[in-house]
């Protein structure tokens, strides 16, 4: 499985990938993007099997990315990993078709639980 990790913080992208591996998702290929627009390019060119995205990013936010994917008819499984998890944002994320919204700070168990719940293994 190819997993795209999108976050404007390089440090956070590394932590997400490391935590994914610690959670048992270590047999997958990880690709990275540092904003929503860059992620859109990667999705169009590399067709990842799962997208994990921050919400608040320059150029294009995570929710704008998800909405752009919807407009383009691209249905890649998509989840948010973000420090912002207000009920309003959670509702908007689910309405846009995101599978989950995982809050930072997170634990290895959080990743295992949320990805397991949506059938990623």
């Amino acid at each position, binding site marked *: 499985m190819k997993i795209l990790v999108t976050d404007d913080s390089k*440090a956070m992208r590394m932590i997400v990938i490391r935590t994914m591996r610690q959670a048992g998702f270590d047999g997958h290929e990880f690709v990275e993007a540092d904003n929503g627009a860059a992620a859109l390019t990667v999705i169009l060119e590399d067709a990842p099997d799962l997208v994990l995205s921050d919400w*608040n*990013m320059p150029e294009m936010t995570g929710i704008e990315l998800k909405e752009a994917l919807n407009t383009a008819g691209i249905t890649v499984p998509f989840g948010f990993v*973000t*420090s*912002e998890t*207000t009920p309003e944002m959670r509702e908007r994320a689910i309405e846009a078709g995101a599978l989950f919204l995982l809050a930072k*700070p*997170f634990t290895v168990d959080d990743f295992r639980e949320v990805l397991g719940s949506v059938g990623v293994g």
Partner: protein
Amino acid sequence: MSLQLVDDDLVGLAGAIWSSIVGQEAEPSPASTADLAEERTVTACVHISGGWHGSVSMVLPSGLAEQVAAVMYDLPPDELSQDDVLDAVGELANIAGGNVKGLIEESCELSLPVVAEGTSYVLAMPGSQVTSSVVLAHEGRPFALQIHERIDARG
């Protein structure tokens, strides 16, 4: 509205960020933010605007910032650039700010982080005052988490 947040909440938030991101414990410290100002520090700040107006800042001595960044990148400190270190501390402030924003009932926007490093500098936020401030320590090295509220924007 005012943000209902006590220092214990901030200590809990900083501790949770530390254990999750750094993988180690941070304990409340008797040091003050004035103590931090005596050395070279990295300060990262995010702004919240909307139903509540203010900022969340995190201040780390540069040595501690490099140590934390090394853990976050899983690299030796001497292999990190200054940008790597500033990015890492900015992300810590972003996580803190996002969690503080989550405590505000009204709709708000969170800015991207702004990060500075140096000695003897002043972080000026006109119209704001520090409403909560906690200092924790990682292996005896203190760092601070602060809430700055825009008093002139109180509804």
